[in-house]
Protein backbone atom coordinates (compact mmCIF):
# COMPACT_ATOMS: atom_id res chain seq x y z
CA UNK A 1 0.00 0.00 0.00
CA UNK A 2 1.12 3.51 -0.72
CA UNK A 3 1.83 5.31 2.53
CA UNK A 4 1.68 8.82 1.09
CA UNK A 5 -1.75 8.51 -0.49
CA UNK A 6 -3.26 6.70 2.52
CA UNK A 7 -1.81 9.24 4.90
CA UNK A 8 -3.29 12.08 2.85
CA UNK A 9 -6.70 10.45 2.93
CA UNK A 10 -6.61 10.08 6.70
CA UNK A 11 -5.42 13.65 7.29
CA UNK A 12 -8.05 14.99 4.90
CA UNK A 13 -10.73 13.04 6.76
CA UNK A 14 -9.46 14.34 10.10
CA UNK A 15 -9.64 17.88 8.76
CA UNK A 16 -13.12 17.50 7.31
CA UNK A 17 -14.33 15.95 10.58
CA UNK A 18 -12.70 18.59 12.76
CA UNK A 19 -12.80 21.94 10.99
CA UNK A 20 -16.18 23.51 11.54
CA UNK A 21 -15.20 27.15 11.41
CA UNK A 22 -16.01 29.17 8.31
CA UNK A 23 -14.00 31.93 6.72
CA UNK A 24 -16.77 34.34 7.64
CA UNK A 25 -16.44 33.45 11.33
CA UNK A 26 -12.67 33.97 11.21
CA UNK A 27 -13.10 37.35 9.54
CA UNK A 28 -15.62 38.33 12.17
CA UNK A 29 -13.18 37.36 14.93
CA UNK A 30 -10.40 39.29 13.21
CA UNK A 31 -12.53 42.39 12.83
CA UNK A 32 -13.52 42.20 16.49
CA UNK A 33 -9.87 42.02 17.45
CA UNK A 34 -8.85 44.98 15.33
CA UNK A 35 -11.72 46.98 16.76
CA UNK A 36 -10.56 46.21 20.27
CA UNK A 37 -13.36 43.85 21.25
CA UNK A 38 -12.72 40.73 23.27
CA UNK A 39 -12.46 37.61 21.20
CA UNK A 40 -13.85 34.28 22.21
CA UNK A 41 -12.23 31.63 20.12
CA UNK A 42 -14.65 28.98 19.04
CA UNK A 43 -14.06 25.70 20.81
CA UNK A 44 -15.17 22.16 20.31
CA UNK A 45 -14.78 18.93 22.28
CA UNK A 46 -11.26 17.64 22.51
CA UNK A 47 -9.97 14.52 20.86
CA UNK A 48 -6.47 13.61 21.87
CA UNK A 49 -3.98 11.05 20.82
CA UNK A 50 -2.78 9.55 24.05
CA UNK A 51 0.86 9.01 23.64
CA UNK A 52 2.11 5.70 24.81
CA UNK A 53 2.56 6.09 28.52
CA UNK A 54 6.06 5.73 29.68
CA UNK A 55 6.03 3.54 32.70
CA UNK A 56 8.24 5.38 35.06
CA UNK A 57 10.06 2.93 37.18
CA UNK A 58 10.71 4.00 40.71
CA UNK A 59 13.78 6.06 40.41
CA UNK A 60 16.82 4.90 42.19
CA UNK A 61 19.33 7.29 40.82
CA UNK A 62 22.96 7.22 41.46
CA UNK A 63 25.04 9.70 39.52
CA UNK A 64 28.72 9.44 39.73
CA UNK A 65 30.74 12.36 38.54
CA UNK A 66 33.99 10.62 39.17
CA UNK A 67 35.91 8.96 36.46
CA UNK A 68 35.06 5.31 36.09
CA UNK A 69 38.07 4.11 34.27
CA UNK A 70 39.92 7.42 34.09
CA UNK A 71 40.39 6.55 30.47
CA UNK A 72 43.03 8.10 28.29
CA UNK A 73 42.21 9.14 24.77
CA UNK A 74 44.28 6.19 23.61
CA UNK A 75 41.90 3.72 25.21
CA UNK A 76 38.94 5.65 23.84
CA UNK A 77 40.29 5.38 20.32
CA UNK A 78 41.04 1.71 20.86
CA UNK A 79 37.46 1.11 21.92
CA UNK A 80 36.17 2.75 18.72
CA UNK A 81 38.68 0.77 16.70
CA UNK A 82 38.49 -2.63 18.37
CA UNK A 83 34.86 -2.84 19.48
CA UNK A 84 33.20 -1.11 16.54
CA UNK A 85 35.85 -1.25 13.81
CA UNK A 86 35.31 2.49 13.49
CA UNK A 87 38.68 3.66 12.25
CA UNK A 88 37.40 7.16 11.46
CA UNK A 89 36.24 7.82 15.02
CA UNK A 90 39.42 6.28 16.40
CA UNK A 91 41.55 8.62 14.30
CA UNK A 92 39.44 11.64 15.23
CA UNK A 93 40.10 10.84 18.89
CA UNK A 94 43.80 10.46 18.23
CA UNK A 95 43.81 13.82 16.45
CA UNK A 96 42.35 15.41 19.58
CA UNK A 97 38.79 15.83 18.38
CA UNK A 98 37.13 14.29 21.40
CA UNK A 99 35.70 14.94 24.81
CA UNK A 100 36.19 12.51 27.68
CA UNK A 101 33.01 11.84 29.61
CA UNK A 102 33.83 9.03 32.02
CA UNK A 103 30.65 9.14 34.03
CA UNK A 104 28.28 6.45 35.22
CA UNK A 105 24.59 6.67 36.00
CA UNK A 106 22.33 3.99 37.41
CA UNK A 107 18.62 3.43 37.75
CA UNK A 108 16.99 0.27 39.04
CA UNK A 109 20.12 -1.73 38.54
CA UNK A 110 20.67 -0.60 34.96
CA UNK A 111 24.05 1.07 34.67
CA UNK A 112 25.21 3.27 31.83
CA UNK A 113 28.83 4.30 31.55
CA UNK A 114 29.57 7.14 29.15
CA UNK A 115 33.19 7.01 28.01
CA UNK A 116 33.65 9.76 25.46
CA UNK A 117 32.45 11.57 22.39
CA UNK A 118 34.06 12.37 19.03
CA UNK A 119 33.06 13.36 15.51
CA UNK A 120 32.76 16.36 13.25
CA UNK A 121 30.40 19.29 13.57
CA UNK A 122 27.73 17.61 11.49
CA UNK A 123 27.62 14.36 13.45
CA UNK A 124 29.09 13.07 16.71
CA UNK A 125 29.50 9.57 18.12
CA UNK A 126 29.16 8.70 21.78
CA UNK A 127 30.80 5.63 23.23
CA UNK A 128 29.04 3.95 26.15
CA UNK A 129 28.41 0.66 27.94
CA UNK A 130 25.07 -0.48 29.29
CA UNK A 131 24.85 -3.11 31.99
CA UNK A 132 21.44 -4.73 32.36
CA UNK A 133 20.51 -6.28 35.70
CA UNK A 134 19.69 -9.97 35.98
CA UNK A 135 16.03 -9.14 36.57
CA UNK A 136 15.73 -7.48 33.17
CA UNK A 137 17.52 -10.15 31.22
CA UNK A 138 15.01 -12.02 29.14
CA UNK A 139 16.21 -15.43 28.06
CA UNK A 140 15.32 -14.59 24.51
CA UNK A 141 16.96 -11.18 24.48
CA UNK A 142 20.08 -11.18 22.39
CA UNK A 143 20.07 -7.64 21.04
CA UNK A 144 19.34 -4.19 22.43
CA UNK A 145 18.24 -1.05 20.67
CA UNK A 146 19.19 2.14 22.47
CA UNK A 147 17.17 5.35 22.19
CA UNK A 148 18.69 8.45 23.73
CA UNK A 149 18.22 12.19 23.81
CA UNK A 150 20.94 14.71 23.09
CA UNK A 151 19.67 18.23 23.64
CA UNK A 152 20.28 21.48 25.49
CA UNK A 153 19.48 21.37 29.21
CA UNK A 154 16.71 23.92 28.90
CA UNK A 155 14.98 21.78 26.33
CA UNK A 156 15.51 18.69 28.46
CA UNK A 157 13.67 20.32 31.34
CA UNK A 158 10.59 20.70 29.18
CA UNK A 159 8.07 18.21 27.90
CA UNK A 160 9.98 15.27 26.46
CA UNK A 161 6.95 13.38 25.23
CA UNK A 162 7.67 14.15 21.61
CA UNK A 163 11.39 14.66 21.86
CA UNK A 164 13.47 13.19 19.06
CA UNK A 165 15.59 10.21 20.05
CA UNK A 166 18.84 9.08 18.53
CA UNK A 167 19.07 5.37 17.93
CA UNK A 168 21.78 2.72 17.85
CA UNK A 169 21.91 -1.02 18.12
CA UNK A 170 24.01 -2.16 21.06
CA UNK A 171 26.47 -4.98 20.66
CA UNK A 172 26.30 -7.76 23.21
CA UNK A 173 29.59 -8.44 24.90
CA UNK A 174 30.93 -11.81 23.91
CA UNK A 175 31.69 -12.85 27.47
CA UNK A 176 29.40 -10.91 29.79
CA UNK A 177 25.67 -11.54 29.07
CA UNK A 178 24.69 -8.43 31.03
CA UNK A 179 26.96 -6.04 29.16
CA UNK A 180 26.18 -4.21 25.92
CA UNK A 181 28.49 -1.88 24.00
CA UNK A 182 27.07 1.13 22.21
CA UNK A 183 28.34 3.61 19.63
CA UNK A 184 25.55 6.16 19.46
CA UNK A 185 25.48 8.67 16.60
CA UNK A 186 24.01 12.04 17.56
CA UNK A 187 23.55 15.19 15.59
CA UNK A 188 24.54 18.19 17.69
CA UNK A 189 22.29 21.19 17.41
CA UNK A 190 25.19 23.57 16.90
CA UNK A 191 22.90 26.40 15.94
CA UNK A 192 22.16 29.60 17.77
CA UNK A 193 19.07 29.64 19.92
CA UNK A 194 16.42 32.35 19.76
CA UNK A 195 18.81 34.69 21.57
CA UNK A 196 21.61 34.06 19.07
CA UNK A 197 23.68 32.07 21.56
CA UNK A 198 25.41 28.88 20.44
CA UNK A 199 24.76 26.05 22.85
CA UNK A 200 27.66 23.88 23.93
CA UNK A 201 26.12 22.13 26.94
CA UNK A 202 23.87 19.21 26.27
CA UNK A 203 22.05 16.52 28.19
CA UNK A 204 22.83 12.99 27.08
CA UNK A 205 19.95 10.84 28.25
CA UNK A 206 19.38 7.12 27.66
CA UNK A 207 15.60 6.80 27.76
CA UNK A 208 14.53 3.55 26.13
CA UNK A 209 16.12 0.16 25.65
CA UNK A 210 14.43 -2.04 23.06
CA UNK A 211 14.81 -5.78 23.55
CA UNK A 212 15.07 -8.00 20.50
CA UNK A 213 15.22 -11.69 19.80
CA UNK A 214 17.25 -11.69 16.65
CA UNK A 215 15.41 -9.20 14.46
CA UNK A 216 12.12 -9.68 16.29
CA UNK A 217 11.17 -6.86 18.61
CA UNK A 218 10.14 -8.03 22.09
CA UNK A 219 9.49 -5.00 24.30
CA UNK A 220 10.83 -1.73 25.69
CA UNK A 221 12.49 -0.85 28.98
CA UNK A 222 11.93 2.78 29.97
CA UNK A 223 14.20 4.94 32.12
CA UNK A 224 14.07 8.52 33.25
CA UNK A 225 17.28 9.14 35.11
CA UNK A 226 20.05 7.69 33.01
CA UNK A 227 21.44 11.03 31.92
CA UNK A 228 24.48 13.24 32.27
CA UNK A 229 25.35 16.79 31.36
CA UNK A 230 28.11 17.14 28.77
CA UNK A 231 29.97 20.21 27.59
CA UNK A 232 30.96 19.88 23.96
CA UNK A 233 32.19 23.13 22.41
CA UNK A 234 31.91 22.71 18.66
CA UNK A 235 35.45 24.02 18.21
CA UNK A 236 36.96 20.80 19.55
CA UNK A 237 35.36 18.69 16.84
CA UNK A 238 36.58 18.28 13.32
CA UNK A 239 35.25 20.76 10.82
CA UNK A 240 32.68 19.79 8.23
CA UNK A 241 33.28 21.74 5.03
CA UNK A 242 30.28 23.01 3.08
CA UNK A 243 30.85 23.95 -0.57
CA UNK A 244 28.38 25.10 -3.20
CA UNK A 245 29.96 24.13 -6.52
CA UNK A 246 26.92 24.79 -8.71
CA UNK A 247 27.99 22.43 -11.49
CA UNK A 248 25.52 20.50 -13.61
CA UNK A 249 25.21 17.18 -15.41
CA UNK A 250 22.70 16.71 -18.22
CA UNK A 251 21.83 13.05 -18.60
CA UNK A 252 19.03 11.72 -20.79
CA UNK A 253 17.71 15.24 -21.07
CA UNK A 254 17.58 15.78 -17.32
CA UNK A 255 19.78 18.51 -15.86
CA UNK A 256 21.12 17.66 -12.40
CA UNK A 257 22.62 20.62 -10.55
CA UNK A 258 25.08 19.84 -7.79
CA UNK A 259 24.13 22.60 -5.38
CA UNK A 260 25.90 21.57 -2.19
CA UNK A 261 28.76 19.29 -1.21
CA UNK A 262 29.39 18.56 2.46
CA UNK A 263 32.86 17.20 3.15
CA UNK A 264 32.60 15.68 6.62
CA UNK A 265 34.84 13.48 8.69
CA UNK A 266 32.67 10.42 8.10
CA UNK A 267 31.45 10.91 4.55
CA UNK A 268 31.04 13.25 1.57
CA UNK A 269 27.44 14.19 0.93
CA UNK A 270 26.62 15.54 -2.55
CA UNK A 271 23.22 17.19 -2.86
CA UNK A 272 21.61 17.79 -6.26
CA UNK A 273 18.54 19.48 -7.66
CA UNK A 274 16.98 18.58 -10.98
CA UNK A 275 14.16 19.77 -13.17
CA UNK A 276 11.58 17.44 -14.65
CA UNK A 277 9.68 19.82 -16.93
CA UNK A 278 10.10 18.73 -20.53
CA UNK A 279 12.00 15.58 -19.56
CA UNK A 280 11.07 11.91 -19.56
CA UNK A 281 9.89 12.40 -15.98
CA UNK A 282 7.44 15.12 -16.97
CA UNK A 283 4.19 13.34 -16.20
CA UNK A 284 1.28 13.68 -13.83
CA UNK A 285 2.08 12.06 -10.50
CA UNK A 286 -0.49 11.36 -7.85
CA UNK A 287 2.01 11.50 -5.01
CA UNK A 288 5.62 11.96 -4.06
CA UNK A 289 5.91 8.20 -3.81
CA UNK A 290 4.87 7.76 -7.41
CA UNK A 291 7.47 10.30 -8.39
CA UNK A 292 10.09 8.57 -6.23
CA UNK A 293 9.41 5.26 -7.93
CA UNK A 294 9.65 6.89 -11.35
CA UNK A 295 12.97 8.65 -10.84
CA UNK A 296 14.81 6.72 -8.18
CA UNK A 297 15.82 3.59 -10.15
CA UNK A 298 17.53 5.80 -12.74
CA UNK A 299 19.17 7.94 -10.09
CA UNK A 300 20.47 4.98 -8.12
CA UNK A 301 21.87 3.53 -11.35
CA UNK A 302 23.67 6.83 -12.02
CA UNK A 303 24.87 7.05 -8.43
CA UNK A 304 26.14 3.47 -8.51
CA UNK A 305 28.32 4.30 -11.51
CA UNK A 306 29.47 7.69 -10.28
CA UNK A 307 33.14 8.25 -9.49
CA UNK A 308 34.58 10.87 -7.19
CA UNK A 309 38.20 11.36 -8.20
CA UNK A 310 40.51 12.97 -5.68
CA UNK A 311 44.01 13.59 -7.05
CA UNK A 312 43.77 10.41 -9.09
CA UNK A 313 42.22 8.22 -6.42
CA UNK A 314 38.74 7.01 -7.26
CA UNK A 315 35.87 6.72 -4.76
CA UNK A 316 32.47 5.08 -5.20
CA UNK A 317 29.24 5.68 -3.31
CA UNK A 318 28.76 4.09 0.08
CA UNK A 319 25.62 2.47 1.44
CA UNK A 320 22.65 1.69 -0.72
CA UNK A 321 19.47 3.33 -1.91
CA UNK A 322 18.76 4.61 1.60
CA UNK A 323 21.56 7.12 1.23
CA UNK A 324 21.74 7.57 -2.54
CA UNK A 325 18.24 8.45 -3.56
CA UNK A 326 16.20 10.96 -5.51
CA UNK A 327 12.99 12.32 -4.14
CA UNK A 328 10.70 15.25 -4.41
CA UNK A 329 7.26 16.28 -5.33
CA UNK A 330 5.12 16.03 -8.40
CA UNK A 331 6.20 18.69 -10.89
CA UNK A 332 2.89 20.52 -10.88
CA UNK A 333 3.93 22.16 -7.65
CA UNK A 334 6.78 24.01 -9.41
CA UNK A 335 9.51 22.78 -7.09
CA UNK A 336 12.67 21.03 -8.09
CA UNK A 337 13.23 17.56 -6.63
CA UNK A 338 16.35 16.55 -4.72
CA UNK A 339 18.87 13.80 -5.34
CA UNK A 340 21.74 12.66 -3.16
CA UNK A 341 25.00 10.77 -3.43
CA UNK A 342 27.03 9.68 -0.42
CA UNK A 343 30.73 9.03 -0.89
CA UNK A 344 33.41 8.14 1.65
CA UNK A 345 35.23 10.89 3.49
CA UNK A 346 37.90 12.67 1.51
CA UNK A 347 40.50 15.18 2.65
CA UNK A 348 39.08 18.26 0.95
CA UNK A 349 41.60 20.69 2.38
CA UNK A 350 44.68 18.94 1.09
CA UNK A 351 43.15 17.70 -2.15
CA UNK A 352 44.32 19.58 -5.24
CA UNK A 353 41.91 18.38 -7.88
CA UNK A 354 38.53 16.81 -7.20
CA UNK A 355 36.29 15.72 -10.03
CA UNK A 356 32.97 13.97 -10.17
CA UNK A 357 32.09 11.73 -13.10
CA UNK A 358 28.51 10.67 -13.72
CA UNK A 359 27.49 8.70 -16.79
CA UNK A 360 30.65 9.68 -18.64
CA UNK A 361 30.43 13.39 -17.84
CA UNK A 362 33.03 14.95 -15.58
CA UNK A 363 32.77 18.13 -13.53
CA UNK A 364 35.52 19.69 -11.45
CA UNK A 365 34.62 20.26 -7.81
CA UNK A 366 38.00 21.63 -6.75
CA UNK A 367 40.94 22.81 -8.81
CA UNK A 368 43.88 23.97 -6.73
CA UNK A 369 47.06 22.49 -8.17
CA UNK A 370 50.27 23.26 -6.41
CA UNK A 371 51.99 26.58 -7.12
CA UNK A 372 54.76 24.88 -9.08
CA UNK A 373 52.28 23.13 -11.29
CA UNK A 374 50.32 26.32 -11.79
CA UNK A 375 53.44 28.19 -12.78
CA UNK A 376 54.44 25.45 -15.17
CA UNK A 377 50.99 25.48 -16.66
CA UNK A 378 51.03 29.22 -17.18
CA UNK A 379 54.44 29.05 -18.84
CA UNK A 380 53.25 26.28 -21.09
CA UNK A 381 50.29 28.36 -22.13
CA UNK A 382 52.50 31.37 -22.85
CA UNK A 383 54.84 29.27 -24.92
Amino acid at each position, binding site marked *: *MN*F*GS*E*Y*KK*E*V*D*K*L*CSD*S*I*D*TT*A*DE*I*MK*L*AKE*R*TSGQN*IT*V*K*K*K*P*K*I*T*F*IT*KTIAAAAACLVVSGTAVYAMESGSLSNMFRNLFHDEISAELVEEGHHQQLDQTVEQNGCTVTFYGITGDRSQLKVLMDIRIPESEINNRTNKLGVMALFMPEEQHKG*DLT*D*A*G*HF*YAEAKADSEDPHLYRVELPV*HPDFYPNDDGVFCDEFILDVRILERFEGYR*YLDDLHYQDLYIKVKVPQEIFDDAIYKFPNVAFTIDGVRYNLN*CAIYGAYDT*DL*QFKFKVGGTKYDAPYS*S*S*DDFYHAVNPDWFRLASGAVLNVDGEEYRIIDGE*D*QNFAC*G*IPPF*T*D*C*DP*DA*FMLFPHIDYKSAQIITLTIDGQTATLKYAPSIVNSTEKRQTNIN
Partner: protein
Amino acid sequence: MKRFKTAERRLTLCMTDELFTQAYDTYKNTVYSVIFNYVKNTDDASELAQEAFIRLYTNTEGFSSDEHLKAWLIRISINLCKNHLRSRKHISDSPIPDDIPAESSFEHNDLLPYVMELPEKYRIPLHLFYYEDLSLKQIAGILKLPEATVKTRLNRGREKLRKSLRREDWDI
Protein backbone atom coordinates in the same frame (compact mmCIF):
# COMPACT_ATOMS: atom_id res chain seq x y z
CA MET B 1 -4.33 22.34 -4.95
CA LYS B 2 -6.19 25.50 -5.84
CA ARG B 3 -4.01 28.29 -7.06
CA PHE B 4 -4.49 32.02 -6.95
CA LYS B 5 -4.98 33.67 -10.30
CA THR B 6 -2.04 35.73 -11.48
CA ALA B 7 -3.75 39.05 -10.90
CA GLU B 8 -4.53 38.05 -7.35
CA ARG B 9 -1.14 36.64 -6.43
CA ARG B 10 -0.06 39.59 -4.35
CA LEU B 11 -2.22 39.93 -1.28
CA THR B 12 -1.84 43.32 0.28
CA LEU B 13 -2.99 45.31 3.25
CA CYS B 14 -6.23 45.78 1.40
CA MET B 15 -6.95 42.07 1.39
CA THR B 16 -10.50 41.56 0.41
CA ASP B 17 -12.90 39.23 2.12
CA GLU B 18 -13.12 37.34 -1.14
CA LEU B 19 -9.36 36.77 -1.28
CA PHE B 20 -9.27 35.72 2.35
CA THR B 21 -12.10 33.27 1.79
CA GLN B 22 -10.22 31.81 -1.15
CA ALA B 23 -7.04 31.49 0.93
CA TYR B 24 -8.96 29.92 3.81
CA ASP B 25 -10.63 27.35 1.58
CA THR B 26 -7.31 26.53 -0.04
CA TYR B 27 -5.13 26.30 3.04
CA LYS B 28 -7.37 25.42 5.98
CA ASN B 29 -6.33 21.76 5.83
CA THR B 30 -2.67 22.75 5.51
CA VAL B 31 -2.83 24.95 8.59
CA TYR B 32 -5.01 22.64 10.66
CA SER B 33 -3.05 19.49 9.91
CA VAL B 34 0.39 20.92 10.63
CA ILE B 35 -0.89 22.34 13.91
CA PHE B 36 -2.55 19.04 14.79
CA ASN B 37 0.76 17.32 14.14
CA TYR B 38 2.32 19.51 16.82
CA VAL B 39 -0.37 19.66 19.49
CA LYS B 40 -2.01 16.28 18.80
CA ASN B 41 -5.50 17.25 19.85
CA THR B 42 -8.33 18.68 17.81
CA ASP B 43 -9.44 21.27 20.32
CA ASP B 44 -6.13 23.08 20.54
CA ALA B 45 -5.60 22.59 16.81
CA SER B 46 -8.90 24.35 16.04
CA GLU B 47 -8.05 27.27 18.32
CA LEU B 48 -4.57 27.71 16.92
CA ALA B 49 -5.74 27.34 13.32
CA GLN B 50 -8.25 30.12 13.92
CA GLU B 51 -5.48 32.25 15.35
CA ALA B 52 -3.26 31.61 12.33
CA PHE B 53 -5.97 32.72 9.93
CA ILE B 54 -6.80 35.76 12.04
CA ARG B 55 -3.16 36.74 11.64
CA LEU B 56 -3.43 36.23 7.92
CA TYR B 57 -6.50 38.45 7.74
CA THR B 58 -4.80 41.17 9.74
CA ASN B 59 -1.42 40.70 8.07
CA THR B 60 0.04 43.86 6.57
CA GLU B 61 2.69 42.18 4.43
CA GLY B 62 2.23 41.10 0.87
CA PHE B 63 2.88 37.69 -0.64
CA SER B 64 4.72 37.25 -3.89
CA SER B 65 3.07 33.94 -4.73
CA ASP B 66 0.71 31.33 -3.38
CA GLU B 67 3.78 29.27 -2.40
CA HIS B 68 4.97 32.26 -0.38
CA LEU B 69 1.59 32.55 1.28
CA LYS B 70 1.48 28.83 2.03
CA ALA B 71 5.00 28.83 3.50
CA TRP B 72 4.10 31.87 5.59
CA LEU B 73 0.98 30.19 6.94
CA ILE B 74 2.91 27.03 7.84
CA ARG B 75 5.63 29.04 9.53
CA ILE B 76 3.10 31.10 11.49
CA SER B 77 1.30 27.91 12.49
CA ILE B 78 4.51 26.32 13.74
CA ASN B 79 5.43 29.42 15.73
CA LEU B 80 1.99 29.48 17.31
CA CYS B 81 2.36 25.83 18.27
CA LYS B 82 5.77 26.34 19.81
CA ASN B 83 4.56 29.30 21.84
CA HIS B 84 1.51 27.35 22.85
CA LEU B 85 3.47 24.30 23.97
CA ARG B 86 6.03 26.48 25.70
CA SER B 87 3.36 28.21 27.72
CA ARG B 88 1.93 24.84 28.77
CA LYS B 89 -1.52 26.01 27.84
CA HIS B 90 -1.91 22.76 25.99
CA ILE B 91 -2.56 20.93 29.23
CA SER B 92 -6.17 19.98 28.97
CA ASP B 93 -8.75 21.29 31.41
CA SER B 94 -10.59 18.03 31.06
CA PRO B 95 -8.07 15.40 30.10
CA ILE B 96 -9.23 12.20 28.54
CA PRO B 97 -9.01 9.32 30.99
CA ASP B 98 -5.99 7.15 30.46
CA ASP B 99 -8.08 4.04 30.06
CA ILE B 100 -9.44 5.14 26.70
CA PRO B 101 -7.24 3.66 24.02
CA ALA B 102 -5.78 6.24 21.68
CA GLU B 103 -7.00 4.50 18.56
CA SER B 104 -10.64 4.36 19.67
CA SER B 105 -11.31 7.86 18.44
CA PHE B 106 -9.75 7.09 15.11
CA GLU B 107 -10.85 3.57 14.53
CA HIS B 108 -10.85 4.04 10.79
CA ASN B 109 -7.34 5.43 10.77
CA ASP B 110 -4.57 2.97 10.10
CA LEU B 111 -1.65 5.34 9.93
CA LEU B 112 -2.33 8.52 11.85
CA PRO B 113 -1.87 7.05 15.35
CA TYR B 114 1.48 5.62 14.33
CA VAL B 115 2.63 8.91 12.81
CA MET B 116 1.51 10.73 15.96
CA GLU B 117 3.68 8.46 18.09
CA LEU B 118 6.81 9.49 16.22
CA PRO B 119 9.00 12.09 17.88
CA GLU B 120 8.20 15.61 16.74
CA LYS B 121 11.51 16.04 14.95
CA TYR B 122 10.60 13.20 12.59
CA ARG B 123 6.83 13.69 12.55
CA ILE B 124 6.77 17.26 11.24
CA PRO B 125 9.17 16.76 8.30
CA LEU B 126 7.32 13.56 7.36
CA HIS B 127 4.00 15.39 7.43
CA LEU B 128 5.30 18.26 5.30
CA PHE B 129 6.86 15.82 2.87
CA TYR B 130 3.98 13.38 2.48
CA TYR B 131 0.95 15.60 3.02
CA GLU B 132 2.14 18.90 1.63
CA ASP B 133 4.46 17.44 -1.00
CA LEU B 134 7.16 19.92 -0.05
CA SER B 135 10.74 19.43 -1.18
CA LEU B 136 13.63 19.00 1.21
CA LYS B 137 14.68 22.56 0.47
CA GLN B 138 11.24 23.93 1.25
CA ILE B 139 10.98 21.91 4.46
CA ALA B 140 14.46 23.06 5.45
CA GLY B 141 13.44 26.66 4.84
CA ILE B 142 10.25 26.38 6.85
CA LEU B 143 11.82 24.50 9.76
CA LYS B 144 15.01 26.58 9.59
CA LEU B 145 17.17 23.49 9.39
CA PRO B 146 19.94 22.45 6.98
CA GLU B 147 18.67 20.31 4.11
CA ALA B 148 20.98 17.52 5.20
CA THR B 149 19.32 17.49 8.61
CA VAL B 150 15.87 17.33 7.05
CA LYS B 151 17.01 14.48 4.83
CA THR B 152 18.37 12.58 7.82
CA ARG B 153 15.21 13.14 9.83
CA LEU B 154 13.03 12.00 6.95
CA ASN B 155 15.05 8.83 6.60
CA ARG B 156 14.99 8.11 10.30
CA GLY B 157 11.30 8.90 10.51
CA ARG B 158 10.61 6.46 7.70
CA GLU B 159 12.69 3.82 9.44
CA LYS B 160 10.82 4.26 12.70
CA LEU B 161 7.49 4.24 10.92
CA ARG B 162 8.31 1.01 9.11
CA LYS B 163 9.32 -0.49 12.39
CA SER B 164 6.23 0.62 14.29
CA LEU B 165 3.80 -0.35 11.53
CA ARG B 166 5.39 -3.78 11.46
CA ARG B 167 3.81 -4.46 8.13
CA GLU B 168 5.80 -5.23 5.05
CA ASP B 169 3.14 -4.10 2.63
CA TRP B 170 3.41 -0.35 3.38
CA ASP B 171 5.37 1.44 0.71
CA ILE B 172 6.87 4.32 2.68
